């Protein structure tokens, strides 16, 4: 242990040399963010990003379970071609609700708002996000939006598909549509506020020593995501507002019977909803980078390629929305440009995959559960990616559009991608967030169920889609029965996997082994804290002298902190870094 010398002079005269020392977080902390604020009211009124993250996690898990249960109902109905146990109208409402819930209440918020909220400030060495009260507000706005959506169910519901295409959505059953469009409108603000918070935090609240080239790739990913959230979500807001107005007072913008244009609606809708899928997946990419480096004990291959490719995806992602509309009647010029750009956006993604695999080369690979999920991610997401290329090809898309091929594609990227990455991150940071370890063998078994179940559910869907089976179909012609039945069986296997996960994670909260500060021996800054972390995240303001993937540096070399107990420190970045490098050379 070394420390720099100090001259305790007043800050007003010659610049102070700050005292820095190495700190190691306690193995078993007495005071944590969980113990310092207790009780339901404390949780509901907290401005602590960690608790807000956990509340989001609980909400997301709840909606995932609900929407997942709907999926099981849908797949069960599809066991036989005609009615199995529900009517067509019910089925149509259920698939619409399944989609809307999964997209808006699970996938869009999941990684950024749940894991991101918890981990981002810690990876930046900050005490919280820039606007903690706004953070809490974004959570309640999310809940409010959900309530509105459910109120729609009490008003005849909605069956338009989560895409709400006009004129079907402006003609039929107005009351249900108005409630859900207002619910989605409200929910959008939650996403916008999270994005605003993250951008500001990343720019302004980094601890001394965290330069842009030492930013964890998870942060780069959340940064790119936040930019998309801020730029794209308002367009959804105005689209959904216009749709609500169509229903309330027949403005006539999208309804041809009133002089409007239904294809215009599609342009407006997809201008948000395509970037939205990048909001869903890019944070997942960030998690993969974190986990794969930790469990390879090796620095990331191609740091800048991965960092900047997220920004490239964010940018190009705004220019490809028309690839959802190749059969819609949009102009030939638009169609051509959208197809071309769609291929461009696939390249940065492919580069990431290659870089991750290259990171494994000559690494020290440990196949703990988070890493197992990374491997599953690479497998499933690659299939999703290649089938996306297939859909970007114009002539082939004409055949595949609105068939089960598309359904399989987006489940591979959203579930096989985002959800699997979420599971990887959840298992990776679980000991940090809760201070507990889960049952590792059981976790691997669950991962097996999920991998097998997922492929059994969705691989047949590629085949039947290419053979012509349309999507959003309650009935189907008999030749597709074997595919549907296989898919249904797969969905039950998937459900078992998730139930197992729920089981051992809950169990770990009560009976799990105590986790140390850094069970995975990661070089990430968030691990230089107790598990669970202190209320203020770190006992001392971190001063960072290494990058987050510097596995060639020994663990003991790793972290410095200001001697001043955090809270009211004069952590002027330059002085701190200077003092830190002095401390390093003296070591």
């Amino acid at each position, binding site marked *: 242990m070394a420390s720099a010398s100090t001259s305790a002079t007043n800050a007003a005269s010659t610049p102070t040399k700050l005292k820095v020392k190495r700190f190691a977080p306690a193995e078993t902390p007495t005071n944590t963010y969980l113990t310092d604020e207790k009780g339901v009211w404390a949780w509901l009124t907290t401005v602590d990003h960690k608790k807000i993250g956990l509340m989001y996690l609980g909400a997301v898990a709840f909606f995932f379970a609900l929407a997942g249960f709907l999926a099981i109902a849908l797949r069960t109905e599809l066991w036989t071609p005609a009615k199995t146990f529900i009517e067509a109208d019910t089925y149509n409402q259920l698939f619409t609700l399944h989609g809307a819930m999964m997209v808006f209440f699970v996938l869009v918020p999941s990684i950024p708002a749940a894991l991101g909220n918890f981990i981002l400030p810690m990876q930046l060495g900050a005490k*919280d996000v820039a606007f903690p009260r706004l953070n809490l507000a974004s959570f309640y706005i999310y809940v409010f939006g959900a309530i509105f959506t459910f109120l729609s169910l009490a008003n005849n519901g909605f069956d338009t598909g989560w895409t709400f295409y006009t004129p079907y959505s402006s003609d039929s059953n107005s009351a249900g549509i108005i409630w859900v469009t207002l619910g989605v409108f409200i929910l959008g603000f939650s996403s916008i506020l999270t994005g605003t*918070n993250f951008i500001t935090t990343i*720019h302004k609240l980094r601890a001394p020593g965290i330069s842009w080239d030492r930013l964890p790739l998870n942060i780069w990913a959340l940064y790119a995501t936040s930019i998309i959230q801020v*730029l794209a979500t308002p367009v959804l807001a105005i689209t959904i507002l216009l749709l609500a107005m169509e229903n309330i007072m027949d403005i006539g913008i999208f309804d041809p019977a009133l002089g409007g244009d239904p294809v215009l609606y599609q342009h407006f809708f997809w201008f948000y909803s395509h970037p939205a899928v990048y909001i869903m997946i890019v944070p997942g990419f960030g998690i993969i980078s974190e986990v794969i480096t930790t469990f390879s004990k090796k620095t990331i291959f191609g740091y800048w390629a991965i960092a900047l490719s997220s920004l490239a995806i964010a940018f190009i992602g705004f220019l490809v929305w028309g690839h959802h509309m190749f059969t819609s009647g949009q102009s030939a010029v638009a169609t051509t440009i959208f197809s071309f750009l769609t291929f461009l956006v696939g390249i940065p993604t492919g580069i990431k995959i290659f870089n991750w695999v290259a990171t494994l080369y000559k690494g020290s690979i440990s196949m703990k559960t988070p890493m197992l999920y990374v491997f599953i991610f690479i497998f499933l997401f690659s299939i999703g990616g290649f089938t996306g290329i297939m859909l970007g090809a114009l002539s082939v898309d004409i055949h595949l559009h609105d068939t089960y091929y598309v359904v399989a594609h987006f489940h591979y990227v959203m579930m096989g991608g985002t959800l699997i990455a979420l599971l990887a991150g959840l298992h990776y940071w679980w000991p940090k967030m809760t201070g507990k370890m889960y049952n590792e063998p059981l976790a691997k078994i669950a991962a097996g169920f999920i991998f097998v179940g997922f492929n059994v559910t969705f691989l047949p869907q590629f085949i039947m889609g290419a053979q012509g089976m349309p999507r959003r179909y309650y009935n189907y012609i008999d030749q597709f029965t074997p595919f549907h039945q296989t898919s249904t069986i797969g969905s039950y296997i998937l459900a078992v996997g998730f139930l197992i996960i729920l089981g051992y994670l809950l169990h770990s909260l009560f009976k799990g082994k105590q986790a140390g500060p850094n069970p995975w021996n990661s070089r990430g800054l968030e691990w230089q804290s107790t598990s669970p972390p202190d209320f203020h995240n770190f006992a001392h303001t971190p001063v960072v002298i290494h990058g987050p993937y510097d596995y060639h540096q020994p663990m003991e070399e790793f972290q410095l902190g200001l001697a001043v107990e955090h809270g009211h420190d004069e952590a002027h970045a330059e002085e701190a870094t200077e003092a830190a490098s002095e401390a390093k050379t003296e070591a």
Partner: protein
Amino acid sequence: MANHSATHPKHVQHHFVDSNQQFESAKLGMWVFLVNEILFFGGLFCAYIVFRAWYPELFTQAALELNTFWGAVNTVVLIGSSLTVAMAIRSAQNNQKRGLEINLLITIFLACVFLVIKYFEYEHKLHLGIAPGSFWNPTEEIAAVLDHPKANIFFGIYYMMTGVHGLHVIVGIGLMVWLYLRARKGHFNSEYYTPVEITGLYWHLVDLIWIFLFPLLYLIE
């Protein structure tokens, strides 16, 4: 070694290192929010552009029904209010409590004038049956002049754009009333005037949106 009270004034929240970091963060946050607002209105401008490209005669014809004089007055009113809010910020920077209060009040007053004029514009139109969407029910004289079958769409867009803008004005008034009450209690001084600054930024955007709305809706002939 650290001197806590000197470096952590009351107005600095616990997670910020110092006043400057808090101020910089607040400004960046507001700018990011404003970008989001621009995209939000951008959607409406896009709808405008598309329908105007499809039905140019409709737009020039229908614009005649809008009162250019009062629209221009409103423009001047809003620009004036942007000036006074900038002066309010300056007063805060110079520790002029009275100046801050007065400038905020004038801004609020001008914003209310805007809304009152808007109210009368709307009332006049609704009286003539110029209403959005399915409530479109023009009187005979109007129908004679404005006989385009898609006239209800123009006014749908008009009411949406000016209506959403008007809602933003109301929110701005609320914010400034809150600022005024805090200013009276002496919350703002040259060390800390962040809320005034970022509300000012918001207000400038509201003004800017109107500066685009006005010519696009009222001045096309």
